[in-house]
């Protein structure tokens, strides 16, 4: 079966502007390939075509891209969901500078992640064994720690498009709350103080694109709501 694929191409060494290029790919009948499989078939036709990939099972977060207008991971998006009007349209994640073809420069995204101090802070001397945590306390981290940093959410967020340098974005805030919610972390006050300004958290306008596109089914908007509540409790 032939599949029409239209992909975003841009090689700064050759192109002054990006363009869309059409490929015809032969895909086997009766098997629902993933978008990533199609990318590999295109690369066999044209090895100058560039994208990131690693685990091919949706846990490493390398192949976030815009598939038929929606951000997602190529390796766990089947063609049956991705092909619209008999065509597969692939573009890089929106809102970040394009390095080449489907590869975007994620520096700003990582910078926002690092800004929330995404690590456990606890200056009390550790015990000889683990720090105890009840199953209930641990359950608060579910839906937070699973983030794969694919950037699908942040690059679907208009507030992040407009202020990628100042608004932490849904992915960073999800991680921020992951540590705010961890019973082993003692830096709650400092973490909250860092988030009080008008941009870091409060640029979230509750659009909820992040929830809509998250390939892992996580809910950054809810986490942001929890942060706001904690800020409110701290401030009043």
């Amino acid at each position, binding site marked *: 079966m032939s599949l029409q694929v239209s992909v975003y191409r841009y090689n700064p060494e050759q192109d002054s502007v990006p363009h869309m290029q059409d490929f015809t790919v032969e895909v086997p009948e009766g098997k629902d390939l993933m978008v990533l499989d199609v990318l590999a078939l295109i690369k066999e036709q044209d090895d100058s075509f560039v994208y990131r990939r690693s685990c091919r099972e949706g846990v490493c977060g390398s192949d976030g891209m815009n598939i038929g207008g929606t951000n997602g991971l190529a390796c766990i998006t089947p063609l049956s969901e991705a092909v619209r009007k008999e065509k597969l349209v692939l573009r890089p994640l929106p809102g970040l500078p394009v390095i080449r073809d489907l590869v975007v420069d994620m520096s700003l995204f990582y910078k926002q992640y690092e800004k929330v101090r995404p690590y456990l802070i606890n200056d009390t001397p550790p015990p000889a064994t683990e720090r105890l945590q009840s199953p209930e306390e641990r359950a608060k981290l579910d839906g937070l720690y699973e983030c794969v940093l694919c950037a699908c959410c942040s690059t679907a967020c*208009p*507030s992040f498009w*407009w*202020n990628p340098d*100042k608004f932490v974005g849904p992915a960073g805030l999800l991680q921020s709350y992951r540590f705010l919610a961890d019973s082993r972390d003692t830096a709650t006050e400092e973490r909250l*103080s*860092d*988030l*009080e*300004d*008008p*941009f*870091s*958290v*409060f*640029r979230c306008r509750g659009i909820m694109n992040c929830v809509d596109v998250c390939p892992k089914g996580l809910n950054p908007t809810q986490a942001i709501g929890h942060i*706001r509540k904690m*800020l*409110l409790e701290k*401030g009043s």
Partner: protein
Amino acid sequence: MVTNITSLSRTGLRDWLVQRVSAVVLAVYTVFIVGWLLYTETLSFELWHALFEQTWMRIFSLMALVSLVSHAWIGMWTIFGDYLNERALGKKALTVRFLSQALCGIVLFVYIAWGVQILWGL
């Protein structure tokens, strides 16, 4: 922590809170006015004037006005920040944004001054 000197309260939390509280005030005020208009059988200037003669109504109205102004400032400040920035306009962004904010500030100040004049009939 991102700091900004032009936001209303300079903390996102307070801005956010002000926007929520002012929204509630505006909502209550709107409901009250619409309700009053609907339940007043024959609307006349005298009745309208009498309503606004009362001190509580003047205070309530002033509250709504202040809410409107602060709500608008925060909203407009956000919109200016989103669209009138370096990414969209390049180097002239700072000038354009500052002038827009100044204009917005003047308009909102005029609202307050004029509103007080109307309410207290100065």
